[in-house]
């Protein structure tokens, strides 16, 4: 990233969920790994797929589609787990497929329209258009933290 020309440039990792395109700030992405069988946690919310072994640490994995209220997707070989780091907490997000890495500036991002006043936490922080496709930029903290507060 060249800081001078595009001071507010961000890079986004785009991925597919239920035939829609979403993205996350690439700085929060630690790694991407193939789907492995998870160990389910008892009495967990349905979007909690369980835990996996990430090189010796226990990594909780959630199904991002279910977490966002989309229809649970069928498991395929292309399913991947995006390992994200929020605060000091590592979480795995199960997505359908990872597509691309795109570089944008803040100008390319539009705030999402206010549609539902206060029904659910606003997990989509911005929208952008790439080749006429709308890409939703996810706010990681609302995905991960609200789980924490639910659990607490």
């Amino acid at each position, binding site marked *: 990233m060249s800081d001078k020309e595009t001071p507010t440039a961000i890079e986004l990792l785009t991925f597919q969920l239920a035939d829609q395109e979403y993205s996350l700030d690439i700085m929060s992405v630690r790694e991407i790994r193939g789907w492995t069988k998870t160990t389910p946690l008892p009495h967990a919310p349905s979007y909690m797929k369980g*835990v996996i072994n990430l090189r010796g640490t226990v990594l909780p994995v959630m199904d991002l589609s279910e977490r966002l209220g989309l229809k649970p997707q069928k498991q395929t070989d292309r399913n991947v787990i995006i390992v994200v780091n929020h605060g000091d907490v590592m979480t795995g997000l199960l997505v359908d497929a990872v597509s691309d890495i795109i570089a944008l500036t803040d100008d390319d991002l539009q705030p999402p329209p206010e549609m539902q006043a206060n029904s659910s936490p606003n997990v989509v922080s911005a929208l952008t258009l790439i080749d006429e496709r709308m890409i939703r930029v996810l706010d990681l903290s609302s995905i991960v933290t609200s789980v924490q507060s639910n659990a607490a």
Partner: protein
Amino acid sequence: MSNTNDPMAEIRASFFIECEELLEALQDGLQALDDGDDDPETINIVFRAVHSIKGGAGAFGLEALVRFAHRFETVLDEVRAGRMSPDTEARKVFFQCADHLSDLVRISRDDGELPTEETAALLDSLNGLLGEAGIEEEADDAEEEEIDFQPAVLSLDLDLGGDDEEGSIPDLPPLDALPTAAPSGFTIRFKPDNDLFETGNEPFHMLRALDELGTCTVTCHLDDLPDLDALAAETSYLSWTIDIETDVEEAEIAAAFEFVDGLCTLDIKKKTADDVSSAPSQESPADEEPPVQEDEPVVKADAPAEPSPVPPTETPVADAPQESKAEPAPAAPMKAAPAPAKQAAPAAAKSVVRVDLDRIERLVNLVGELVINQAMLSQSLERSGLSPHSDAMNGLEEFQRLTRDIQDSVMMIRAQPVKSLFQRMSRIVREASAAVGKDVRLHTDGESTEVDKTVIERLADPLTHMIRNAVDHGLEDSEARIAAGKPEQGRVNLTAAHRSGRVVIEVSDDGGGINRPKVLQIAIDKGLVSPDATLSDTEIDNLLFLPGFSTASVVSDLSGRGVGMDVVRTSIQALGGRISITSTPGEGTTFSISLPLTLAVLDGMVVQVAEETLVLPLNVVIETLTLTNQDVEMVRPGAHVVRVRSGFVPLFDLGKELGYRDPVEDYDGSVVLLIAHEDGSRAALIIDSIQDQRQVVIKGLDDSFYRAPGIAAATILGDGQIALILDTSDIITNAIGSSGACAPQVTTGLTA
């Protein structure tokens, strides 16, 4: 301290670590003294500990610490010299002072606010002790007066005894100023012992330090130096004579040798022959005459030279002028005194390496990885169809053994004796007993029992609670004790022992035992149990662990705020431990904590439930059974019990409780694990099959994300899959919560 790049901060940090050890030694010594040990070495140890703290504190300019330690030391010196007997009152003050000293050390370390009032109060008690001795001292001094001292010196000394230390500081300038007016010199003979070099000191630095104080003429004596073939590389042969022309105080000269005190033969003589002829006349009447100064160093040099255990030759008379002279001075004679014994100490002590806990932590983690990796390797080799007698399999077996050995050794590094913890508890007992006005004595046993460091740290709070409870609630007051035919002094026992792979720590008192009718009444009053419930003694005892329970009708300062035992139980459970009570009316109460040796590995039983692999702590599993329909009785729909020999045990389906599958319909042929908890509650858990018994490495689950009920932790199996480690008591509690009450479950509900 936080800045590791600062070398001074590092030294400071290590000083405080050393202080911890010294304070431990101090406590030990005082305890021994309290137990009637009259070995002179005991008081020496106590004295040395205080002295070393003072010395170190001085180096870091920790004024308050130095002043307090100094006074404490002065009193201890009286005891050491046999002029004062450590009677009960004195020992009590000593304990308080030791506690306060450790407070001061802690506060100094954290740069906290100093408890000036407390310090002053204790200094007064110390002065009180000193006052008695001071009278004797005066008598002693009177005899020697003619020889060495003018009365003026004595009055200065007594001033110091009576005043707070502020008094001694204003004394400084005039006294210090005097020698500057009288330029003089010293002749120093300095012969390093072997130990000086062994401890990493270097005479060159001292010579250089002296050079800064004045003009030095240094002569090195090579007379003792043998021929090269007879020379032992580790023996010190050299000695020096230094003629120094200086106007500084002798104490400053002595300060140059402060760090090698006791590691060398040192003789500092003031030059009297030539230029000092005019000096005596210039000295104020309050100061000593030259002969005094000449005499003193000899006394001082005697101490390190003669390796006698205690230098009784060193009278406080020798100390007196030094103390009155200048602030750095007191260190000199005091330092000299413990020296001979100090030399002996390193030989007895085990050689110890201080290691950053983080490094050990990393090692533990790595070993954990190694164990997992080894398990994975052995599984894949097995799968590849190798003959069990092939070289590879044999080698693997060896590897397995080595891994286990490494793991044990690493765990041992983290293990620490519980002694430090117990010492803190003896302080708690002292403070608690003073607060409630009971005479209580703590007896400890098994102090050398080793437990994982983390466990020790996290035990401090619950144990404090329990000890306070024992003193406050457990023991009766003196009248009641006498009436019950018990000795007036109450007794609290604190013991630690290894028992079948776990550590058992017991806190017991010889008090009145739990007043069960009262406990039950309170529980009913507070609505914790229904009024018509019939509870067994154990169940009533366990009511104490319920949140919000407090038996003390009067809430005292110490305990009885209702946050006691349930918090204790929670913290013990968080450590993977269990706590239980036994109580006999009139004879006392025993709380027993059973803890795993380490928080890093667990002996587990690997089982299969609904396709999932789970691990149960092996220590809760007491029996495995295969059910037949005749064994199972229905209490009511959905609640079953198993008949195990004479008793009925509630039956739970693990698969259902964890939400993995629907409840088993037909119990015939099911495998059940009979589990028992420390509190005596039992349950039978239905599983699909038992796979293995093995040691597993505990991996923490990130609780902040989602706290799964009934799950204590996780582990990684040989195939790289994660298996959950169950918290059986949590599972059963939850199961009862969800299925409502029936007869056997009420029992578990109260105890689990």
